[in-house]
C-alpha cells in the first residue's frame, strides 16, 4: 500500500502538539498550573492513541516480511 499518504498523521500530531503547547503556556500565564498540566496529559494521551497503532503496524509488517513469527 502506498504509505506516504500516512504522512498526514505527522502533521496532525504536529498540530495537536502545537495547540497543546499554546494552551499550556496560556494556562500557565493565567495562573492555572494544574489545568495546564492536565492539558499536557490529555494531549499526550491523544497523541499516543494515534501513534501506537502505527507502531503495531510496523511490527506486524516486519514479522510478515522477515517471517519472524
Amino acid at each position, binding site marked *: *500500500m*502506498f*504509505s*506516504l499518504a*500516512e*504522512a498526514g*498523521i*505527522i*502533521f496532525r*500530531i*504536529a498540530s*495537536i*502538539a*502545537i495547540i*497543546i*503547547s499554546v494552551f*499550556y*503556556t496560556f494556562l500557565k500565564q493565567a495562573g492555572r498550573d494544574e489545568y495546564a498540566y492536565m492539558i*499536557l496529559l490529555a*494531549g*499526550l494521551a491523544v*497523541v*499516543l492513541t494515534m*501513534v501506537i497503532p*502505527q*507502531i503495531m*503496524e*510496523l*511490527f506486524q*509488517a*516486519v*514479522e510478515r*516480511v*522477515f*517471517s*519472524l513469527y
Partner: protein
Amino acid sequence: MNIMQIVGLALIASIIAIFLRQTNSPVNAMLISVLVGIIIFISILKDIAYVLAALDQLAHKAQVNQLYLGTILKIIGIAYVAEFGAQVCRDAGESAIASRVEFAAKIMVLVLAIPILVAVLETIIRLLP
C-alpha cells in the same frame, strides 16, 4: 517511492520535531521521529519484499537448504527491529535502555545461529579422516 519524497518527509518531520522540542513538548517530538521511521519503512516495504522474493528464487534454484535462508531472514528482521528500538531510545536520551535492547538482540541472534554452527561443525568433522 522515490528518494525525494522520503528525504522531504524526513526534513519536514525533523523541523517539526525540533520546533516541538523547544516549545516544551519533547515527548511529541520523539513520537514524531518514531512515526517518520515507521512511515519510511512501510513505504519501502514493497522493495524489500521484492528483493527477498528474488533471493528466495535463487536459493530455490541452488537447492540451498530452506533453514539457512529462513534463519538469515529472521536474523535480519531481529537486527532491524532492535536497531530501530535502540536508536529511538538513544534519541530519547536513554542510552542505557538502548544498550539493553541491543544486548538482548545479540543473544537472540546467537540463539538463531546455533543450529547452523552445529551443522557446519558436523560437516567438518565428517570430512576429517
